């Protein structure tokens, strides 16, 4: 399996976990509306579904980037984790902060502690799962 395909699969998996975490909030799935609103796709009836699917698709896209970064090399575990976390930070800045505020015509750095804590932590978690899942797909298992 080449690194881009590995990255795509790891990214889709991490995106699915992220989408499930967004689904099980108090709403349920209230934050999925936020995801749909980053792409101006939110509405009362299908906003959650759009949000759920978008997280998985975005997960796959960032997974491909991850695979490109590690093309032609076998990353160590800590390198995979750290590069995953770095990609999580980029996800947060580009998608959640910049695009989200741009679409809603809010100031670029419009940010409350509440939303920082929630979205930043989950973006990092996406990166952690992406990095470890990618690493897991590259190692040969004992036994």
């Amino acid at each position: 399996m080449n690194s881009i395909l590995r990255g795509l699969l790891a990214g889709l998996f991490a995106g699915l976990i992220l989408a499930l975490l967004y689904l099980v909030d108090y709403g349920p799935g209230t934050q999925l509306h936020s995801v749909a609103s980053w792409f101006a796709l939110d509405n009362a009836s299908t906003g959650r579904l759009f949000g759920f699917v978008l997280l998985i698709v975005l997960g796959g896209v960032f997974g491909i980037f991850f695979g490109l970064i590690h093309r032609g090399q076998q990353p160590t575990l800590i390198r995979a984790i750290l590069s995953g976390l770095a990609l999580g930070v980029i996800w947060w800045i580009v998608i959640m902060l910049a695009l989200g505020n741009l679409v809603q015509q809010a100031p670029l750095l419009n940010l409350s502690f509440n939303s920082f804590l929630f979205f930043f932590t989950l973006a990092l978690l996406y990166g952690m799962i992406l990095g470890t899942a990618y690493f897991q797909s590259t190692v040969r298992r004992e036994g």
Partner: protein
Amino acid sequence: MSISSSMRKRFATSTSVERGATIAPITLSERSSMGLALIRIFLGYLWFQQLFWKLPPDFAGLHKYVVREGQYTILPGYSFIIQNVFLPNFTIFGAGVWTLELVISLSLLFGIFTRFGAILSVLQAVQLYIGIAYSPGEWYWTYGMLVMLGLVMIAVPAGRRFGFDQWLAPLLQSRASRSRIARWLSWLV
């Protein structure tokens, strides 16, 4: 009644086997390890979500629950502590609870010293059970399950897949023979 020599021999053999019996170790498969890691992430998310209804600087959402703990606790004397220590110093107490739950959630979400986070989660869940589980409108098993989930995360190395512990565990174990701190820390991953 007499026992024949062949029966006696069989009996002796079986007791010696029982005395020296061994139990095959249970090894978690890769899929089981990953499944447990996902449960760990969702348990961490459970704690993480509870940060948002008691946010700093005033931790206002927490106040009414602390008052209820003072009214419905099942532990004699705990009500006195809540009324005379916690409530008069609510901001400090609230900051402590919030920070504790932040540490628990980050530890479980990211698999960093997962067993340490799980120990803290059990302590906090036991405190909740003692304080609030039997108050009106609460289902006491909610807090019982929270305790048991934490105990499961102490029992199994759930942070060693999809978590920092996968990197930390071998690192600490390789240094455990030389460093006492590394040995202690290796118990917490």
